[in-house]
């Protein structure tokens, strides 16, 4: 499995698991690296199922939402599914203000989220 600086990746069945390593996703450089690594990970897979785990993330800039939007669009275009889990209440507030908790499929934790992929 490839080694990334910003994300930890795994796979169960056909579902790509992504765990963000950073506590703070605020800096533009960090964001760009995450973008590159996610793109690299999804790579050639067409319509992949992806679960993003935010358990480590304590702070996140609004620009990260944009990145998630991009990812969401890319994955849904290929008829894949993007789900998220482990989002702290403080960060979830940002999703709620922007109504994006309705756009994204958000779950409490990884097992709960994985169960919804079937």
């Amino acid at each position, binding site marked *: 499995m490839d080694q990334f600086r910003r994300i930890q990746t795994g796979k169960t069945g056909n579902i790509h698991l992504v765990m963000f390593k950073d506590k703070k996703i605020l800096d533009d450089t960090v964001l760009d690296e995450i973008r590159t690594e996610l793109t690299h990970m999804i790579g050639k897979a067409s319509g992949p199922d992806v679960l993003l785990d935010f358990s480590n993330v304590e702070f996140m800039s609004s*620009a990260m939402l944009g990145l998630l939007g991009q990812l969401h669009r890319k994955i849904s275009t290929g008829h894949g599914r993007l789900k998220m889990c482990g989002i702290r209440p403080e960060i979830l507030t940002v999703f709620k*203000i922007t109504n*994006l908790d309705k756009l994204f499929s958000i779950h409490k934790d990884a097992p709960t989220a994985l169960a919804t992929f079937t």
Partner: protein
Amino acid sequence: MHDTTSGAGGGTRAGVDVLIAEDSRIQARMLERRLTEAGHTVRWGENGALALALARERRPDIIVSDIEMPEMTGYEFCKAVKTDPALRTIPFILLSTLSDPIDIIRGLDAGADNYVTKPYEPDYLLARMDALLATPLTAADDAGGEMLEVTLAGQKFRVRAGRQQVLNLLVSTFENAVSKNQELVVANQELSVARDGLQKSNEELTSLNAEISRINSHMIRDLKAAAKVQRSLLPPDDVEIPGTHVAWRYVPCQSLAGDFLNVFPLDAEHAGLFVVDVSGHGVPSSLMAVTVGRFLTPKVSDSSLLVRQGPDGRVTVVPPAEVATQLNRLFQADEFSGLYFTLLYGVLHLPTGRFDYCSGGHPALVRLPADGGDVEFHPMESFPIAFVPDVEYEQRSLQLVAGDRLFLYSDGVPEAMDKDRNPYGDEAMAACLRASRGQPIADGVAGLLSAVETWCVPEGPLDDVSILGVEWQPSSLTNDPSGRSSSSRPR
């Protein structure tokens, strides 16, 4: 690097029986290989004691010994050989680091014939072996056995050594010094070459630095120009709109911001006001802000989304929800860049106090009622602009009473973090605005900004902070009989 003119390799006598004492297996193997190549017989003991046993088993022609070894050191081994009548005339070479002059005395005392300093070239060692074997010690030479007294570093040493041995040792020490000196000369030459190279690199660096500073000053100039363009998106400091009291504050966290706000008359009866917050900071976000700003202009033009002119020349105000829907459509045109923005746009009908507004993922509209009621938050569930394609945005309305205040702001206000990363929050904002009741609205807006800045001490806000406040005061509206006419007021 060594001078090997004494005939290393080819001229060496062959068939010499060499005994090596060396605790490092690797070094012993390397030396053994080189000696075997030169046609010698090699035996090896990994400490002095083992080597001594080998020497007694069969008398070698020459002994090469390391100094630091377990069991029996090179000095002890040497002394044992030199005090053994059957072995004492065997030439003995000590491999020394020669880090201390006392080493020489110790070697002399032990009876060593020669020193080779480590690290050494095998050819150099071979040459020294040749030299030693060419001038063999005679039994007579070491018979003298006079005691010599040597003072070194304040310490007296009494050593017993024969004339030939002293001579050999003297020559080897001198040769060592010459060899080391040659190495030094070469090293010095290399250093001088390196220094020249360094000087050249330094000059290149200096010129690169000048280049960087030139480019940097260009970029600063461009950034300043961009910041100036961005400021043109803001209302004048002394903005006045009949029928209202307006105040605003705007603090970008970098020279270029993603936030901007504006308030302006749309026609004789309507005022438009908005706060926009583009995700991220810096050049990309500010470019998007400027682009968005072109569409949010009250001037009748092809690009304005806020007002449109019918074929009969009548200017109509576009409802806020339609503005948001249009913006969302426009900014979906490109492949989603990851940049998006939130928007709160409202239109105040000046004669009646009806406020129509629409939010695109923006923090709640806040009302401070004139009647003494508590601060109200009016959140609206909606997606940010440019995030989701083909969204029809909804519109809400608030009926104001005279003296009601509305506050629009960016998330830099409620999400401003203190040093422990606690957000300033809606509650604190409400309390601050509540406390400003009765003061002029300009003081209320300034007070909120300073509360946010105090919250963020010492680092200051990490996000742009925008605050726009409007108080509806219909009494200040001059009763203009043409007020309801359709005359446009392009400014």
